[in-house]
C-alpha cells in the first residue's frame, strides 16, 4: 500500500487547486449564496462569515487528518472504530461520494440541457461525461492531479476575463447599504448554511496519505477555503451588480446568465467561453468523486479501486437517468437539495465527530497506532 502511495504521490499545489476548483464550481454553477438567507447585498458578508464556521465544522475531520496523516479517513476509522464499524463507515462514505458524483452529474446534464443541448437525450450527454470521467479516474490520482494543474488555471483565467469583460454592466450601488436589510441572525444562518456545504474538505481527508508533505494539511485547508471563498465573493458581487439583488434570486444559473449579458460592440456569445471552462471544471469534479467512491468501495471490498470505476459510472448513469428525466435538480429545491445537505452534514461533521470522540475515549489503547501501523 505504501509503495502504491509513493507511486500516487500528489503535491501541495495540485491538491490546493483541486479543492479550490471543486468548491468554486458550486459558485459558478448555481451560486447558492444568492438564494440563501438573507439573499441580499450582504451576501458577500455571509460568505466571509462562513469561513470561521467552515473551520469549526471541519475541525473533527482536520483533527483526524492531522493526527493520522499516514492514512486516509477510511483507514483511520477502521483503526479507531474496529473492523466492523470501520467497514460500515467505509460503506457510508462510498454512498456519500457516490451521491455527490451522481448529484454533480445531474447538475452537469441540467445546465448542459439548458444552455446547449436542449434536445439531446440525457443518456447521450451523461454517457459522454461518464466515459470521460471514468477514463480520467482509471489513469490514477497522479494523472488526475496533473490534469488539475493544467485545467484549473484555464478556468480561473476564463472566470476573471468574463468578470472584466462585463465591467460595463456593473452597478455597484445595488450592493449598498450593507448590513441594513439583514439581521445578525440571518447573516449567521446564511454563513452556517454555506459552511455546511463545504463537502470538498473530504478530499483532503481522503488524500492526505498521498501528499508529498503530509504536514501541509492545515495549510491546504485554510488556503483552499480562503481562495475559493474570495472567488465566490467576486462571482457573487459581479452577478448581483449586474442583475440587482431580486432578479438574481430568480435565476437558476446566475454566472451563466451573467456571461450571456456580456457584449463588446456587436460581439456576443461569451457564454461559450463560460460553458467550455465550466465543462472542464465539472469533469474534474465528477472524476474526483468517482475516484473517491472507488477508493471507498475498494476499502469495503478489499480490492483494487480501479475495478470499481466502470460499475460506479454505470450506476451513476442509471441514477442520473432516473433523476433527470423526472425533475430538475437545481431549479427545484425539494428533496434533492435537502438530501445533499443531510449527507453533507453527516459526512463532514457527524461521522468524523463520532470517530474523534471514540478516539479520545480509546486514546490509551490506540496510543501507538501510528507507530504500530507503520510497522
Amino acid at each position, binding site marked *: 500500500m505504501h509503495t502504491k502511495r509513493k507511486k500516487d504521490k500528489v503535491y501541495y499545489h495540485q491538491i490546493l487547486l483541486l479543492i479550490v476548483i471543486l468548491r468554486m464550481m458550486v459558485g459558478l454553477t448555481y451560486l447558492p449564496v444568492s438564494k440563501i438567507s438573507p439573499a441580499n447585498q450582504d451576501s458577500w458578508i455571509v460568505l466571509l462569515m462562513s469561513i470561521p464556521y467552515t473551520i469549526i465544522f471541519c475541525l473533527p475531520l482536520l483533527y483526524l487528518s492531522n493526527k493520522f496523516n499516514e492514512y486516509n479517513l477510511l483507514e483511520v476509522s477502521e483503526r479507531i472504530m474496529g473492523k466492523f464499524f470501520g467497514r460500515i463507515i467505509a460503506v457510508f462514505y462510498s454512498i456519500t461520494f457516490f451521491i455527490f458524483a451522481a448529484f454533480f452529474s445531474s447538475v452537469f446534464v441540467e445546465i448542459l440541457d439548458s444552455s*446547449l443541448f436542449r434536445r*439531446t437525450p440525457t443518456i447521450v450527454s451523461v454517457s*459522454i461525461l461518464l466515459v470521460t470521467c471514468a477514463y480520467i479516474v482509471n489513469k490514477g490520482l497522479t494523472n488526475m492531479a496533473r490534469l488539475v494543474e493544467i485545467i484549473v488555471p484555464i478556468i480561473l483565467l476564463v472566470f476573471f476575463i468574463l468578470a472584466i469583460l462585463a465591467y460595463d454592466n456593473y452597478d455597484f450601488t445595488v450592493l449598498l447599504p450593507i448590513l441594513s436589510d439583514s439581521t445578525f441572525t440571518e447573516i449567521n444562518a446564511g454563513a452556517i448554511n454555506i459552511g455546511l456545504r463545504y463537502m470538498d474538505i473530504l478530499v483532503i481527508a481522503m488524500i492526505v496519505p498521498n501528499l508529498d508533505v503530509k504536514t501541509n494539511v492545515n495549510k491546504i485547508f485554510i488556503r483552499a477555503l480562503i481562495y475559493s471563498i474570495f472567488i465566490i465573493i467576486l462571482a457573487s458581487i459581479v452577478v448581483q451588480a449586474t442583475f440587482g439583488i431580486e*432578479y438574481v434570486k430568480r435565476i437558476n444559473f446566475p454566472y451563466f446568465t451573467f456571461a450571456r449579458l456580456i457584449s463588446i460592440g456587436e460581439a456576443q456569445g461569451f457564454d461559450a467561453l463560460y460553458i467550455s471552462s465550466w465543462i472542464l471544471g465539472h469533469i474534474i469534479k465528477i472524476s474526483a468523486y468517482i475516484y473517491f467512491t472507488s477508493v471507498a468501495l475498494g476499502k469495503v471490498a478489499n480490492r483494487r479501486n480501479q475495478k470499481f470505476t466502470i460499475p460506479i459510472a454505470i450506476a451513476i448513469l442509471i441514477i442520473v437517468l432516473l433523476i433527470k428525466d423526472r425533475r430538475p435538480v437545481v431549479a427545484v429545491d425539494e428533496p434533492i437539495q435537502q438530501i445533499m445537505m443531510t449527507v453533507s452534514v453527516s459526512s463532514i461533521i457527524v461521522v468524523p465527530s463520532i470517530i474523534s470522540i471514540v478516539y479520545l475515549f480509546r486514546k490509551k489503547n490506540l496510543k501507538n497506532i501510528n507507530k504500530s501501523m507503520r510497522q
Partner: protein
Amino acid sequence: MRNKVILLIACSILMAFLAGCFDARELDDLGISLVIGVDLQDNRILVTAEVVDPSVSAQENEVGSDGSVKYVQGTGGNIFEALRDITLKFDRRIYLSHNKVIIFGEDFAKKDVVLYMDELFRDREQRETVYILIAKGSKAYEVMGINSGLEELPADYVHRLIKNIEFNPKTVDTNIAEYLKYYYNLGQHPVVGVVERRQRRDIDKSEQKTGTRETELSVLGSAIFKGDSLAGYLNGNDTKSYNFIIDNIQVSPITFPSPLSYEETGKKLVQNEERLSSISIIRNRTKNDVEIRGDRLILKTEVNIRGTLREVIGDIDVSKEENLKKMEEACSKTVEEGIKLAVEKVQKEYELDIFGFGLVFHRKYPEQWEKIKENWDQIFADADFQIDVKTHIIRTGLINKPLAR
C-alpha cells in the same frame, strides 16, 4: 499500436456524438427573427416577427426595399404559443437568438408585461441583451417593416436608432435584463424606449422614388412603467433630463440661448432667446443625493459637464475668459431648467420615481427606508428638488470669435 487503434476508434465514435446532431438546427430550417412585435388582439397575444429571407442576396436587395425580410404573425394565449402558431402558416420555426429588438404595442404595454415576458427569460434562445421599445400610440406591427435609413434591413435600422443614444440622449436604450432589474427595484421604476411612425418630407422628387419612402421611425422620448404596466410617456427633452439624472449621457449636444457679451450686460447673465449656441458633452458626471430637513425631503442632483463648443450663434467673443464663463453659465442654466421641468412633470403627472432617488434614500437612510418603502412614490412626489449644474467648456474648436462678429 493496439492502444492507438482503440483510441482512434473511440475518437471516431465520439465524433458522431460531438457533432451535436441531436440539436442540429440547420440554417434552412430556421426562420431567423431580428425584431418581434407583441400586441394584444381580442385578449390574445399577437406576435409579429421580422424574419430574414436568406434567398435574397445583398446584391439583389436594394437599400430600403426590405426584400430580404418577411413578416409573419401568430396568435396564442401566451408568447410561446403565438410563436409556435406561426409554424402553422410559415414554413420555418422562429429562431430568436439573433433578435435585436422587441416592440410592445401600446395596448399590450398597458397590460402585465412582465407576466408575459416569462418565455423570453425562461428559454435560452432569446438573449437578455435585446432592446425593448414601446410602439407609441399604435400596434407593434404598425411600426415594423419601415426602413428609412441606409441599413439593409428594417431591424438594423431600428437597432441603429436605439444605439444612436450615444449621440443624442433624447431616447432610452433599455434591454430586457435592465427592465427586469428596475422592475424588482423598489426605489426605481423602469423606463424604456419608444418608437413612432412618422410622416417624412419627401425630398427625392425623381419619378421612381416618389412616394416610396414617405414614412420614417422616430425613437424620440421614452415610456414610463409602473411595475409592469405602461404609465405614460416622456418627451425628448424630458428623456434627456432623465438621462442626465441617471448619469447615462455620452457624447450629447446641449443647445442653449446664447448669452450676450459682458460689454453689453455688465456682470449679469442675460440670454438671447432667439440665438442658440451648442456644446457637445465630452464627459458627464451626475451625483444624486437625498436629505431630510425637518419634515421635508430634499432630492438633490449635481451635474458636472465637460464639453466642447460646437456652435456659437450670437455676438460673443469666446476667446475671452469672462465670455466663456457666461457660455458655461448659460449652458448650466438651460440644463438646470430642463431637469427641473422633467422632475416636476414626473412628480406631478406620474408620481413615480424613475430616477432612482429611492435607491439613494435606501442607502443613506436604511432604517427609515424600511418604514417608508411601500409609500416611496408618494414621498418622492411630494419632495423638494434641488439641482446644481456646473459646466466646463474645455475646448472651443478651430475658431475663436463667431464668424458673424
